[in-house]
């Protein structure tokens, strides 16, 4: 298979404009004759559905939640990047482009990333026009903060709930179209297969999660915006329902799956508390603007802390190891996520972890310095030039509360500890997946008519995503890219007419879905779906997690294949097919995670280098930094499904050409 990325010719800054000017259009009178399916209603899906609905297409949007507003984009906390340069600190489209390529460790496509940077400013304009209440300064202008991996302030935010506000903005645009009758919304529906007719994506099979009915929906194009696959690890910051199923079904129908091993482990999450834990909670990266990360310098102090004999606040300044500031003085606590996560893991592996759980995995995120600094500034601003220590502390805490109040409250609810008084305990956790369905420049997968947007595709973040860039990509894809590229595809469909759902292809797809459902329900196993999901998660975390090696990966591949067989034999799914059956939903999703997990390990094994979120222990320098191999691995891996046995998947490569950015070592020192 030849991978054609369809990157337009010309200088990088003109590619998108030129490309848009030459894309085919569908006249307004023809649009109502054309159906488009959108699966997923997060930032990418909701914005795409709203935009296509506005244009006049018949849109059918699907989400498995009870409302499109629940999509997990809502949980993004910190912010959204945009090259507005409102702060006049040297930001530009080029700088955002460059930072994103570098942050992705030179494993992303230049043209896609530049387009992302170009449209980023429009996103902010659009969202403000929609009534998204971003944080503002006293002069009424938009406020910015800085995020990891950058040296400018380009992140727009709404307290610690930016994702919520942006998603509700997209949801409002979507709701408007639903109200106008241009988008038909299918809540509590899960896509369980893609239907291809004559090689083109022509519809989906969706299960109505309330009645259990399998429904056939046809369309001239299908957009998959179903999010990432972090839940393959069982424990992650993803929502419980987040799954790979829609993307994986597309993969099984012929779409290539790219860079599955590129997983982002977020450095600042609340550590694991016990065996019944169902998910991990993120503490926004924005906290690294104000918090300093440390562990004790001496192992005996770490041991005393874990045993509860020593409090972190009792440890003297000189006994603390601010390991990020020590190792990366230029970026300090604001190094990219993968770097920060690995540094924390390194300290904990060495025995300096401070959390009293099974693995002692945890480091401190300390706000005491910031409390003093901001408190003094606040006192000064109030005209108090000689504040007492108490006044400073009080004002500093107030400042923190204004900036991060909801995050601190959330932390206290979960851990029962007050982060204003004692440092937060944090540890890396699976957060985002850079890999996904392979798409070309038009966001079309290798199946004609099947487009993939947002976290579900692989396109923009390379081997590591910078903070506040996921929201940017989701909205860029949905609002500003897909409306053009999907129309270009649909321009050839104006004479197709309504697509029948009575074709043998639809029947075959529906039958195969029904067969897999019946297989689970008829299985006389004894163990719950979660039992298997947790076991899969453990294999993934230990062997395909933050640090990987050849031996572990080979073991993981074998173990997952065995687990998959056991899963199909031993799983017990209660209830029936014709009702709301959460266990059945989980079983269908975990089945796909089993496949994907194995592929991730295979992908990690073939990539004999360390880059971004993919860290192979064999490929590091003397200081433990990643060693990239640009000569042999400057490519996007793209896997082709070959049947039940995942080990048979075939690897294709899309070579990455860097014409506009000089490829260099990624240095944050």
């Amino acid at each position: 298979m030849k991978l054609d990325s369809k990157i337009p010719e010309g200088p990088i800054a003109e590619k998108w404009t030129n490309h848009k000017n030459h894309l085919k259009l569908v006249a307004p009178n023809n649009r109502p004759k054309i159906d488009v399916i959108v699966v997923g209603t997060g930032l990418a899906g909701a914005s795409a559905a709203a935009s296509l609905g506005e244009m006049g297409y018949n849109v059918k949007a699907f989400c498995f939640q009870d409302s499109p507003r629940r999509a997990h984009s809502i949980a993004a906390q910190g912010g959204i990047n945009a090259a507005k340069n409102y702060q006049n600190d040297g930001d530009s489209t080029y700088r955002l482009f460059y930072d994103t390529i570098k942050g992705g460790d030179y494993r992303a496509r230049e043209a896609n990333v530049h387009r992302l940077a170009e449209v980023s400013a429009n996103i902010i304009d659009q969202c403000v026009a929609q009534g998204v209440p971003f944080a503002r300064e006293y002069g009424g202008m938009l406020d910015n903060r800085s995020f990891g991996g950058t040296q400018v302030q380009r992140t727009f935010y709404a307290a610690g709930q930016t994702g919520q506000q942006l998603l509700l903005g997209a949801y409002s645009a979507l709701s408007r179209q639903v109200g106008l009758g241009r988008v038909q919304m299918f809540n509590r529906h899960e896509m369980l297969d893609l239907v291809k007719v004559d090689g083109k994506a022509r519809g989906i099979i969706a299960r109505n999660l309330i009645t259990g009915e399998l429904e056939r929906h046809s369309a001239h194009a299908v957009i998959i915006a179903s999010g990432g696959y972090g839940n393959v690890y069982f424990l992650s910051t993803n929502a419980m329902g987040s799954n790979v199923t829609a993307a994986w079904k597309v993969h099984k129908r012929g779409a290539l799956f790219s860079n599955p091993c590129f997983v982002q482990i977020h450095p600042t999450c609340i550590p694991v508390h016990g065996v019944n834990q169902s998910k991990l909670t993120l503490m926004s990266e924005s906290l690294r603007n104000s918090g300093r990360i440390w562990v004790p310098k001496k192992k005996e102090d770490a041991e005393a802390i874990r045993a509860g004999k020593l409090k972190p606040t009792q440890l003297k300044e000189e006994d603390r190891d601010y390991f990020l500031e020590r190792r990366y003085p230029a970026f300090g606590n604001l190094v990219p996520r993968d770097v920060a996560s690995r540094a924390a893991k390194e300290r904990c592996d060495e025995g300096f972890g401070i959390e009293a759980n099974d693995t002692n995995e945890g480091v401190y995120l300390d706000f005491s310095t910031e409390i003093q600094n901001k408190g003094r500034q606040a006192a000064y601003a109030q005209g108090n030039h000689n504040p007492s220590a108490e006044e400073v502390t009080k004002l500093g805490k107030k400042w923190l509360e204004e900036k991060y109040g909801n995050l601190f409250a959330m932390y206290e609810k979960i851990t029962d500890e007050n982060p204003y008084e004692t440092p937060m305990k944090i540890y890396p956790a699976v957060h985002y997946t850079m890999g996904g369905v392979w798409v070309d420049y038009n966001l079309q997968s290798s199946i004609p008519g099947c487009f993939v947007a947002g976290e579900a595709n692989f396109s923009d973040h390379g081997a590591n995503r910078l903070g506040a860039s996921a929201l940017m990509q989701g909205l860029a894809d949905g609002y500003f890219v897909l409306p053009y590229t999907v129309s270009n595809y649909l321009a050839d469909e104006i004479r197709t007419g309504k697509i029948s759902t009575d074709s043998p292809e639809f029947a075959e797809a529906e039958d195969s879905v029904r067969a897999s459902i019946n297989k689970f329900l008829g299985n006389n196993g004894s163990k719950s779906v979660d039992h298997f999901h947790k076991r899969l998660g453990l294999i993934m975390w230990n062997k395909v997690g933050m640090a990987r090696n050849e031996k572990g990966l080979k073991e993981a591949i074998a173990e997952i294949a065995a687990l998959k067989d056991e899963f199909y034999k031993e799983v017990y799914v209660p209830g029936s097919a014709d009702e709301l059956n959460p266990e059945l939903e989980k079983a269908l999703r975990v089945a796909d995670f089993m496949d994907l997990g194995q592929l991730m390990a295979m992908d990690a094994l073939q990539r004999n280098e360390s880059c971004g979120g993919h860290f192979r222990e064999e490929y590091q320098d003397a200081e433990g930094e990643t060693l990239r191999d640009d000569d042999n691995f400057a490519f996007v891996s793209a896997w082709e499904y070959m049947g039940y046995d995942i080990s048979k998947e075939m690897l294709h490569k899309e070579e990455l050409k860097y014409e506009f950015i000089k490829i260099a070592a990624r240095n944050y020192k």
Partner: protein
Amino acid sequence: MSAAKNINITLKIWRQKNAKAKGQIETYKLDNVSTASSFLEMLDQLNEQLINEKKEPVAFDHDCREGICGMCSLYINGRAHGPDTGTTTCQLHMRKFNDGDTIYIEPWRSKAFPVVKDLVVDRSAFDRIQQAGGFVSVNTSGRTIDANAIPVPKHDADRAFEAAACIGCGACVATCKNGSAMLFVGAKVSQYALLPQGKVEATQRVLNMVRQMDEEGFGNCTNTGACEVECPKGISLENIARMNREYLKASLK
């Protein structure tokens, strides 16, 4: 951190096969629940136990489990989202309960939120209210004016954000003795009424949203203030007053 311990509890849970079936409260015993667990992890544990006994697990809505998606619900011991204030059920932790406690778990009760199964209810009425007017009618071209072209006073932006922080969970309706959705609708109306971008179509918006709200069968607001107390995001009653104001203004136009 107060050290986690294990407790044994009795659960009284509403079980209902489907929307048409008659439901009833069933009693379950659950042992060795860690107080560090969240309430939903406790229910996971119960379901694991039920599955192992080959019984049907309890259906309940949940997704993000970090208090933001608004999918979780549950009326716990007579209160929406349980005994903690400013907290969704998914962020409620078992350390709020004691060994030997009996815990009642019921679905949201409202004519507009029919039970789908067990503890799962249908909240699409909220979507329909939003579709009636909860938006700014601006196309998604990206070709609007510059985001900083209209300065918005920080105070207004902050109030709008506080209103927009609503997660649409429906606790306000569940807890209101009248089953009123005024806090939800008031928050949405307020968000837009406070921002210059939303003011343009404020009149139509409030009339349409209130009409839809009434059609859905929600009750009327009698200002008991229960919604504000139980709202996991602390949405203020001021938003209801603002909606009343907007509605009066719109009705007189």
